[in-house]
């Protein structure tokens, strides 16, 4: 991967971010009603709305407003949440770690499990085990995540008593250190599993396809003829198969966030999902805008990272 490619790819982020900011701006300003009310909430009086108008420059011409909005976003100022009475950036930053923990764990679980299952299925291609794995993976993807979450809460949590149904920690204890970490993991287990189940399908299928393709190449035939162990052959095939998997992981960032929001709702996980729900109920538009920008940014960054990883991993690709 050349430095020129890296630079080019990084520069591509700029129009993407600009597009997102423009889209957010357009949506807010084409909505019916007064933007001052959307940004400031319904319970203000005239003096308050005058203050909001001044702060966001709502009386200035639209292009000027757009520039002002873009600059404040770039500075990290995502506006003020009138429900929480604090900057949106703070409110979101508070809830972000819990969601990242959930998403990260689910991503790790689904990637690892997906690869393992994909290899397993590829080695038993066209046999019943292969069929079973592919069907299960596809079902996991087809089932709505909130439905799966509720079923899991009832059967795995309440049914067995092994897992909690809500929260990130046990409210009756105030543990610290590694006991706290264990408590968090205990609460993380079900939500992460449910979220991972939805993501499993794609990774499994891609790995399986990639491994099967690689197993059919001349290189593999030669290697087999030379007496290389099956395991070594599969390992080589896997290395080539992982490429598309890596690409897909990045692209799924948006869907992963969506799934996280729905799963958080069922399990009362104190992350961005809960924040989004309460913001919808109170029409806290600044927070919803902030969440939209944040998730978009996350998707842009994820795409960037996976493109770079792809270019780095695959020496055959020349992207000058």
């Amino acid at each position, binding site marked *: 991967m050349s430095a020129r490619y890296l630079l080019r790819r990084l520069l591509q982020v700029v129009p993407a971010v600009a597009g997102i900011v423009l889209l957010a701006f357009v949506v807010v300003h084409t909505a019916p009603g007064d933007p001052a009310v959307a940004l400031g909430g319904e319970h203000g009086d005239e003096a308050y709305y005058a203050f909001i108008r001044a702060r966001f420059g709502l009386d200035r011409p639209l292009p000027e407003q757009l520039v002002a909005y873009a600059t404040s976003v770039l500075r990290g100022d995502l506006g003020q949440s009138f429900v929480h009475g604090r900057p949106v950036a703070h*409110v979101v930053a508070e809830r972000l770690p819990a969601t990242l923990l959930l998403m990260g764990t689910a991503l790790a679980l689904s990637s690892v499990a997906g690869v393992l299952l994909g290899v397993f299925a590829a080695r038993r291609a066209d046999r019943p085990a292969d069929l079973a794995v592919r069907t299960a993976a596809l079902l996991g993807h087809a089932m709505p995540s909130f439905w799966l979450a509720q079923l899991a809460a009832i059967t795995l*949590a*309440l049914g067995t008593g092994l897992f909690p149904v*809500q*929260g990130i920690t046990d409210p009756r204890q105030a543990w610290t250190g590694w006991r706290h970490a264990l408590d968090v993991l205990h609460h993380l287990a079900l939500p992460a599993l449910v979220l991972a189940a939805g993501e499993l399908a794609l990774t499994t299928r891609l790995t399986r396809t990639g491994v099967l393709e690689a197993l059919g190449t001349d290189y593999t035939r030669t290697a087999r003829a030379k007496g290389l162990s099956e395991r070594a052959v599969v390992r080589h095939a896997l290395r080539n198969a992982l490429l598309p998997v890596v690409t897909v992981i990045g692209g799924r960032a948006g869907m992963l966030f969506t799934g996280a929001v729905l799963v958080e709702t069922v399990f009362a996980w104190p*992350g961005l999902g*809960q924040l989004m729900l*309460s913001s919808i109920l109170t029409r806290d538009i600044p927070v919803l805008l902030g969440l939209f920008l944040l998730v978009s940014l996350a998707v842009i960054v994820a795409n960037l990272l996976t493109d770079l990883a792809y270019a780095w991993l695959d020496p055959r690709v020349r992207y000058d």
Partner: protein
Amino acid sequence: MRRQRAPMVPLVLLLVVAWTAPAPVRAQDSTPRGGILVVAINADPGHLNPAITTSGATHAAAELIYNGLLGRDERGDPLPDLAESWTIEQGGAVYRFRLRDGVTWHDGKPFTAADVKFTFEEVLLKFHARTKASMGGALAGIDTPDDRTVVFRFKQPYAPLLLQLDATEAPIVARHVYQGTDAQTNPANVNPVGTGPFKAVSYRKGAEIRLARNPAYFKPGLPHLDEIVMRIIPDAGTQVLALENGEVDFLWGVPGPHQARLKADARFRTAQTSYNPGGSNCIMTVSFNLDRPALKDARVRRAVAHALDRNAFLQQILFGEGRVAAAPISSEMAWAHAGGLSLPAFDRAEAARLLDAAGWKKEQGAARVARGVAGVADGTPMAIDFLHFPAFAKYGELMRQHLGAVGIEVTQRPLEPSVFAPTVFKNRAFDTNVISYCNGPDPEIGVRRMYHSSQIGPAPFTNAAGYRNDKVDALFDQASRTVERAPRSALYHQIQEIVAQDLPYVWLVETPTTRAWAARCGGFRPWTGLFAEAAFCKRS
């Protein structure tokens, strides 16, 4: 022989002494001390100051941190709290309260009458909607002749004062914390200082609020619990699951379908109450916008009332928990509730007859059509909209069904609370809506605002119908000045008879809630905000 009997005498004496001596002092109550209670709440309160809002979420989470001048018993009658005694003078125009001695704030500073005066003048009367609406116009002034005396002076005799001084309607905050600051943005709102049985220890946004026992609480022996954790669990179904899984001990409200199950389960106890942190004695009420031509005719409103099967609302939405509203004032206030009224019964035929008489004829399509209705062009179909909080969508669906059956087309418009309020009360852009109107502990607090002509917007949750009736206005004014129960009751009865004829609203159902808790805990007072003041939990 003498020697053998000798030891008997001291023994007998000992027995006699032991028999007649006073019994050793045993602990008065064997209530278990200590323990942690985990309570599920529906939403993040945003802050912990119940004096500046009537939001249910804040009150549920934070009332245990404060006290009011008075408390409430199970029947709703006043009890001493921060005030140990009171007198009513000048026929109810002056109330004099003697405050308890030795009460301290959570930061150690002493509680005095100055705190009460400050709370009312600078906080409650500026920001607490119900107190402002009811007391605001009637109060002449508050005096504090000494540190332990507070005197409320009213322009005229003011009847309901004693019922609106609890932690829900008038929690007392600390002057030394709030003086000179903006009460809405003071950081003490998230690090509160109160006098209550529990102090706030931590507040993790979106997750939980932790309260700890106040060892210096002014009621001896209370509270029993060491800690209370308010867990934020927005989904009602998850709350029930958490209760059943032992993760949570107390629920503020059990959803209808789960009630029968929990009641039958020996692991839990339930109690039904009409008190809620956001407001008590609530009735789900349909309002008619009396400015709309189609609804100006009382026959149309009466027809709508006849077309609604209110029992279906009770059974299908509330699962039988509650009552069909028998009168405009909640039956929980037995002295004011007009029990003998005959509100329109479910009668589709009568509804059809009234609509026909009012000029709405059944013709080709599903909806009736106007023929000779004042202010409505001939041929206009009878279509009305119905605004509601998204949480009350079921009411909309039943409205649509029931009114559709008599030829009225209903369009549901779900609106979030923050949009609902200005649409209904400021812009009056609606035909009908449903609102959970909470009567409060006294009709003066929550009923007057629905009917008095001075209360027609723009403040939210006031006279949505836009009802104007001079006689009713006069009756309300008189009732607020009358302190004795009996004549007051007669006045409220008269009011209810008039509005039951005019039908500016249709009163659907009274909505009590069912609290539930783990059987190993007890001592709850579900009728007040200080619900866990005397609560305990046995170690499992």
